[in-house]
Structure formats: structure tokens, C-alpha cells
């Protein structure tokens, strides 16, 4: 601090190199946290598997988000009832609230196993919060329906307006897949079709408006 000076950056004691370095490191921490609207550095309790991370990062095309346009988020799913014989699973995503409220582009990435028997119809539902009444089921809303014809990775576009996470930031998607209308033979062969382990874990790719006041659409005006 300049003592008595009206221009703190013009005068003041020159710091010893090590003191200046310590100050610079402290400034850097504060600057990065403020820039990311964080009060403290995140504690990573659930790091994604390295292989899944590397594969997912390959999906983030460089420059796919215009500078100052917002953020791009990749969220890995936690899969429940993965033991189901087909690909009807429940995927849970933990998003920071209310991040998903500002998504303008959403894709769900799934990896289908080679055991895919011909063409399947995959319907994706968003599950609402559990109702208060004990034993009641979660409400669900149909988001999209896709045809799965080949094994491997699929990027399934979802309506970003339908992706409202619960207040806790948890987003639940329910997958239901089955034969196309009138194709009964496929249904009779229960086998694992969705790959959920390790680096083939499903993940959600979101493009999100910047959340500072006065940016985004207002700027367009």
C-alpha cells in the first residue's frame, strides 16, 4: 500500500523478491476464484476416471463456446440399476445449481455395446422429485426419443428447456429402450446393451449462458 499516496501503484516500498512472489501467488488465487465466482477452491471428492475424462474432453471441440459466451459443462452420470438386462437405466447427474437452468444446448452421450440387436427405440425421460406421499413414484417427463441402430458412442440431443435440475442440483434421467413398434423378436432377447463402466460412462454435455447480470441476450439488444 502506498502510504499517504493517492496512487498506490505509483509509489510505495519496493518489495523483496520473495515477498513479492508470495503476494503474487496470493493475488493469483484471489483473481482466479473471483473470476470463476467461487468463494474457495473446489474439493474434488468424486474425480472422474482419467480415461473417461480424456475421452470426454475430446468431445469439447476447441472454440465450440465463443469467448465470453458462457460455459461448457461435462457431467458424468452415476448409473443406478445398471444390472438391468437391456438399457433401461436411471442416470443421475450432480450439477451445480442452478446451472442447468441456463443451458441452451444439451447432448447425452451413451456408449452402446456390440450386442445391440438391430434397431432399438430409446426414450429419455426426466424424473421429477419424489412426491411426499410414501411409496409414491417420481413423476416423469418425456424429453426425447431416438433410434439406436449401431453400437458405439451416440450423442443424443435433448431439449435444453426440459433439463430443469432439482434445487439440490441433481438431475435424474430415466432411459427406456425397447424394440421399434411391431418388431417383437428383439424384445425376446434380454442382454446388456448400455456400457456404463469405466471410460464408457454416459455423460451430459451442456452449453450454458454466462450467468453474470447484463450479459448474454441483453447484450444482443
Amino acid at each position, binding site marked *: 500500500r502506498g502510504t499517504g*499516496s*493517492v*496512487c498506490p*501503484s*505509483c*509509489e510505495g516500498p519496493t518489495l523483496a523478491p520473495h515477498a513479492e*512472489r508470495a503476494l*503474487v*501467488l496470493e*493475488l*493469483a*488465487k484471489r*483473481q*482466479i476464484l473471483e*473470476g*470463476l465466482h467461487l468463494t474457495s*477452491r*473446489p*474439493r*474434488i*471428492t*468424486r*474425480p*472422474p476416471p482419467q480415461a473417461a*475424462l480424456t475421452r*470426454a*474432453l475430446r468431445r*469439447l471441440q476447441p472454440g465450440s*463456446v465463443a*469467448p*465470453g*459466451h*458462457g*460455459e*461448457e*459443462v*461435462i*457431467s*458424468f452420470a452415476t448409473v443406478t440399476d445398471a444390472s438391468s438386462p437391456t438399457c433401461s437405466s436411471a442416470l443421475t447427474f*450432480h*450439477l*451445480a445449481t442452478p446451472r442447468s437452468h441456463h443451458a441452451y444446448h444439451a447432448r447425452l452421450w451413451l456408449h452402446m455395446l456390440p450386442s445391440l440387436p438391430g434397431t432399438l427405440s430409446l426414450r429419455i425421460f426426466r424424473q421429477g422429485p419424489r412426491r411426499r406421499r410414501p411409496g409414491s413414484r417420481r413423476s416423469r417427463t418425456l424429453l426425447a426419443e431416438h433410434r439406436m441402430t449401431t453400437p458405439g458412442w451416440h450423442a443424443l440431443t435433448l431439449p435444453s428447456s426440459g433439463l430443469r435440475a432439482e434445487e439440490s*442440483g441433481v438431475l435424474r434421467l430415466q432411459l427406456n429402450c425397447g424394440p421399434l413398434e411391431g418388431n417383437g423378436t428383439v424384445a425376446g432377447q434380454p442382454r446388456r446393451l448400455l456400457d456404463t463402466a469405466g471410460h464408457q460412462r454416459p455423460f451430459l454435455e451442456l452449453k450454458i449462458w454466462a450467468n453474470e447480470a447484463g450479459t448474454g441476450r441483453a447484450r444482443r439488444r
Partner: protein
Amino acid sequence: TPTCEPETPLCCRRDHYVDFQELGWRDWILQPEGYQLNYCSGQCPPHLAGSPGIAASFHSAVFSLLKANNPWPASSSCCVPTARRPLSLLYLDHNGNVVKTDVPDMVVEACGCS
């Protein structure tokens, strides 16, 4: 704007590279490995007031000479950033999600006297 040399007392840009390893933040900041944290410091004598560095126009140059030759009323001039650029960051949030964002005005590129 010159980068600071030890003997330069005038307003200049002081360059520092911060490696996130030094902060112990490599576990959650995936890219880049570090960034330039530059800042502006140094004196702004009256005849440099309002000179944003190499971008000074002819008008600014004349204006400066006038000030240098006249006892200009004491109004302080400060060494401040005159050009900045954003920093692209790829990081893990506390849910383990991968976030890619551009943080505006993070890197000081040029300094000048206000």
C-alpha cells in the same frame, strides 16, 4: 508499454508467470498449466499523464509537452492497465463436472498513466 527493468522507475508492466502447481491447484484446474499474472506499477510524472503507452496519438504527445512545460495543477496520475485479455480455463467443479469457461480481463497486456 515497456516491461519493467530494474532501473525503470516509470510506469511499466511487471510480468509474473504463475504455475498452478505452485498454488497446489493442479488437481482441479486441468488446463492451462499456469497463466501470466502481470500488473502495473511505477511513477506517472505529469507529462506522462494520459499517455497510454505506444498507442499515444499525436494529440497526446502535444498534450504531454504542454503539461511538461506548464506547472500543471497537481492532479495525480496513476499507473493502470490499458489492455487486458480473457483467460480460458478448464476445471473440475466440486461435483467432479468438467467446466470450460473464459474469464474476462484476466491477463494485463499493457499499462499506461491515467
